[in-house]
Structures are given as C-alpha cells and as structure tokens.
C-alpha cells in the first residue's frame, strides 16, 4: 500500500460513512442500496479526475474548512454515540476520540504510518464481518435472504435491551410491555377518542409500562428499556419483505436519489486526493463498503432490536450484545479498533486540505476543528445529517464553481469561482433551513440541498467568467488542465 494510495482511500473511508452505511442497511432504509454504491464508487471518480485545486479566495477557503470540520464532527459523533450506548456520557467518547486523533495527527511521523493504520483498520472491519458470519453461520447473501423472508421484524430473545442516545419517539403497532432499566421519566401519548393525551411516568428500575396499539412512547436521551422478545419492533419495517424493498413514493425517490449521488460524488471530488498510483486507492473503498453492507445485514440478522435508537454506531456496536461470549469479544474489540484506526487514517488525509486552506495557521485551525467537533458531538445529533451537510456544501460551493470556471491564474478578488462559491453556499444554507418543510418531490432539495445549490453555483460561476475567457474556450485553467498536486 503506497502512502499516496492510503491518503486517497483514507480520506473517504472514515468511521462516520462506515457506521452510517451499516446502520442504514440494518434499518432497511430505502436509500441504503444507492448509498452503498455511491460510497464505493465516489472515491473512484475522484481518483480518475484531475485534482480540485487548493481554495484561493477567502470564501472558498472558508467552505473548505467548514467541509473538513463537518466531516471531522461526523466522525467524532460516532464515538459520542458509542459512549452513550455503553452507558457513558456523550462528551466522554467525543473528547477521547478527538484528543487521541489530534495527538496522533500532529506528529510528523504519523504520516508515514498512515498506510499501516488504514490497513489495520480495514483488517479489523473484515474481522468483524468474519466473526458475524461465524456467529450466524450464514454468508451475507444468505443472511439477507433470511431476514427478507421473515414475516415480521421482532425483538430477539435475550437481545431486547436498548439504550437511546437521543430523544426518541416510538409508535407501537401492537400491545407491548416495556420494562424500564434504571430510573427515569417517560411520557406516553395515548389516543382517547379524537384527542391525544400525554401522560408522564416517573419510573424506577424494573417498572413496567403497558402500551396499547397506537400509543407513542417518548423516551429521553440516555433512557434504557427492555422490550418484549417476540414483539414487533416499533418504527421498524413491518416485515422482512418491507425491509428488503424499502418504500418511498416515486415522486420523491428520483430527486432524492439524484441528491444523494450529487452530495457524495461532489464531496468525494472535493476531499479525496486524486491521481493516486497503485490499486490500493481503488480497492480499499470497495472492501470497506462491502464490509459495511455485511455488518448492516448481520446486525439486523442477529439482533434487529439493537438498531433501535442507538445512533449511528448501532449496527456495529449492537452486534456483540447478541453474540456468544467469544464472538462478542471479537466483534466488540475489532469493531472498536476499526472505528478508531479509520478515524486516525481519515484525519491524517483530511489534514492536508486544512493545510491548503489555512496556510500558516493550519496547526491552530486543525486543533480548533477538533475542539469544535468534540463540543458539537456532545449534542445528540445524527452523524449522517452532519456528514451529508458537509459533503453537500463541498459539492455546492467548492466543486461546482470549479467545474464551471476552473482556476484563473492571477485572478484576484471576486473571481467566478468565488462568486459561485458564495452563491452555492447561500443557496445551500437557504434550502437546508427549509429541510422538512418542502412538499412532495421538492422535499428532496431539503434533504439534499446540493441538488439545487450545486447547479446554482455552477450557473453563477459560468456566467461570471470573463466573456473573453468564454469565447476562447477558457484562458482559465480548466479542470482538465489543472496540474497534479
């Protein structure tokens, strides 16, 4: 594995993307197949195309730093979720992960070990898959087919405990007795005729809450409960067939798919160093992507209830609890080591982008990014929201203007790329603010603002190009003529 190949692969195969993909597969999310594909091929496109030049304008530099900061934040959130799952405080996992990664990445010798760290991380992910395969006694495709043939997704015997890493509302389709593990205050929304009544319950350890069909249980972050084995998992797909198929209205599926693809492809082009040599850079995303998909399949096969309310790391962290002791140890140790090693390798690669954007103040900026990421991860937010926002911003305000206008040597002030960046960032921010409030097919633009913001940035940048440059086919250094880094 060459150092450049490792830099290429590591920039993309961070713990957030691995954990998000595994969890989405486990949960039967409608976008899971496309997410798996784009995760595996996006760095390949970045590998083959010319590199995105270093950000020159302050606006583009800011976009670059926000993008890298967002990816680091998403990666650290995975460790905060893990800490919450294990019964600790979110900040403990976040601070530990951020501090250790920062300490490793500021050491000059760390760059030389990047390939080894990445290889070890990938080996650990593969070990998790192997342990899960031995535990279930099935190949991934056999496990997928077995889950898809289940008449209902129900809590497994002895694996019905769940700890909620953020405020969660569960809607029950059938009568269910939920046992509190530890004290807390739970709220239950019950339907009485045409109105809904919310009752608050102060529960102690082992107290039982009886819920009727249609009731909603509102659990605070940190709550831990035990569900009835054999009962349907609230909020999960009703059956294995529904898990396998996913469900989304066609009006929204196409724009959402396009938005997801644009977000990840643009993010990869921005962040992943291009033109690496050797096969490592091409093969590593495939191996990590396959491993993440397999982890998701095995997680739902072993303990479908584990993915409930346990955050981004649910699929990876939930498996040990449902496995026999020896396999559980391998799953826990290899899973934890994989996430940690991939975090370090990813951070080492992303640091190069910060050095380009921040120049002399890169060490302080890098430290500040990790401090902010640790602070932000203490807040219970979904890692995918943060990661997709960061990658979408990069696609909209960094890559799209560059694709339109290229790099203009000597361009100062308000270059087309800078104008495109600002327009893209503003459009992205406006659409993100409307997330969840846009109707029908337009809702995809709220989920993935790059769907609209990237074309806006592209249009502004290409319009702002000097007329002489446009007539000449571009005195600017177009993307195809940009030199390698």
């Amino acid at each position, binding site marked *: 594995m060459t150092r450049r190949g490792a830099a290429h692969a590591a920039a993309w195969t961070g713990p957030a993307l691995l954990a998000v993909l595994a969890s989405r597969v486990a949960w039967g999310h409608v976008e899971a*197949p*496309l997410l*798996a594909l784009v995760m595996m091929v996006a760095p390949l496109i970045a590998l*083959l195309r010319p590199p995105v030049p270093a950000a020159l304008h302050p606006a583009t530099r800011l976009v670059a730093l926000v993008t890298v900061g967002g990816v680091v934040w998403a990666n650290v959130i995975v460790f905060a979720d893990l800490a919450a799952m294990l019964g600790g405080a979110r900040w403990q996992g976040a601070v530990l992960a951020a501090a250790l990664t920062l300490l490793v990445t500021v050491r000059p010798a760390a760059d030389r070990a990047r390939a080894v760290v990445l290889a070890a991380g990938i080996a650990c992910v593969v070990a998790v898959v192997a342990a899960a395969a031995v535990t279930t006694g099935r190949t991934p*495709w056999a496990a*997928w*087919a077995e889950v898809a043939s289940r008449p209902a997704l129900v809590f497994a015997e002895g694996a019905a405990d769940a700890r909620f890493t953020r405020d969660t509302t569960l809607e029950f389709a059938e009568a269910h007795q939920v046992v509190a593990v530890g004290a807390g205050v739970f709220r239950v929304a019950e339907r009485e005729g045409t109105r809904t009544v919310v009752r608050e319950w102060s529960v102690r350890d082992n107290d039982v809450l009886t819920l009727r069909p249609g009731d909603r249980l509102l659990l605070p972050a940190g709550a831990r409960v035990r569900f009835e084995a054999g009962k349907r998992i609230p909020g999960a797909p009703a059956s294995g067939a529904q898990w396998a198929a996913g469900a989304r209205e066609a009006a929204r599926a*196409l724009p959402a798919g396009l938005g997801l693809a644009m977000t990840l492809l643009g993010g990869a082009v921005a962040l992943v160093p291009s033109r690496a040599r050797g096969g490592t850079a*091409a093969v590593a995303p495939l191996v990590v992507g*396959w491993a993440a998909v397999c982890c998701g399949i095995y997680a739902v096969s072993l303990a479908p209830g584990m993915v409930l309310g346990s955050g981004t790391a649910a699929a990876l962290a939930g498996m040990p609890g449902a496995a026999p002791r020896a396999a559980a140890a391998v799953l826990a140790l290899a899973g934890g080591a994989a996430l940690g090693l991939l975090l370090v390798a990813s951070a080492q690669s992303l640091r190069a982008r910060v050095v380009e954007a921040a120049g002399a103040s890169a060490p302080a900026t890098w430290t500040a990014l990790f401090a902010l990421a640790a602070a932000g991860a203490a807040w219970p937010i979904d890692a995918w929201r943060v990661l997709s926002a960061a990658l979408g911003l990069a696609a909209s305000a960094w890559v799209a203007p560059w694709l339109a206008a290229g790099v203009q040597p000597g361009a100062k002030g308000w270059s087309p790329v800078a104008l495109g960046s600002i327009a893209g960032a503003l459009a992205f921010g406006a659409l993100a603010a409307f997330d969840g409030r846009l109707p029908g097919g337009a809702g995809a633009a709220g989920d993935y603002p790059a769907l609209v913001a990237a074309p806006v940035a592209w249009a502004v940048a290409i319009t702002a190009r000097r007329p002489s440059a446009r007539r000449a086919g571009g005195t600017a250094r177009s993307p195809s003529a940009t030199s390698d880094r």
Partner: protein
Amino acid sequence: MILVLVAVAVVLPVLPGAPGALRAGGVSLLWWYAAVAAPLLATLITLGALLVRSE
C-alpha cells in the same frame, strides 16, 4: 462510465414494474447491482484506467 453505473441505480427503484425487486438467489436485483456488480465493475474500470495511465 462510472457515472452511468450510478445513474442506473438511481433510476432502477422507480422503473415501472419494479425490476429491482426481483430476487436472484434470495437477494433482490437492486441489491446485487448496487452492492456487488456495479461497485466491482467500477473498481475494475478504475484499475484498468490506472494501468493504462501508468504505461
């Protein structure tokens, strides 16, 4: 070429008749395509391109 592979996965779930939901070996065609065939093909294309570039 790689973008075409992605475009097929975007369109496949919304095609009339849901061909992606057909099963082969117990697994849906959409999953075989998106998680196995397309990424493998994309990786082979990339390795080929890298090989040509290095010559």
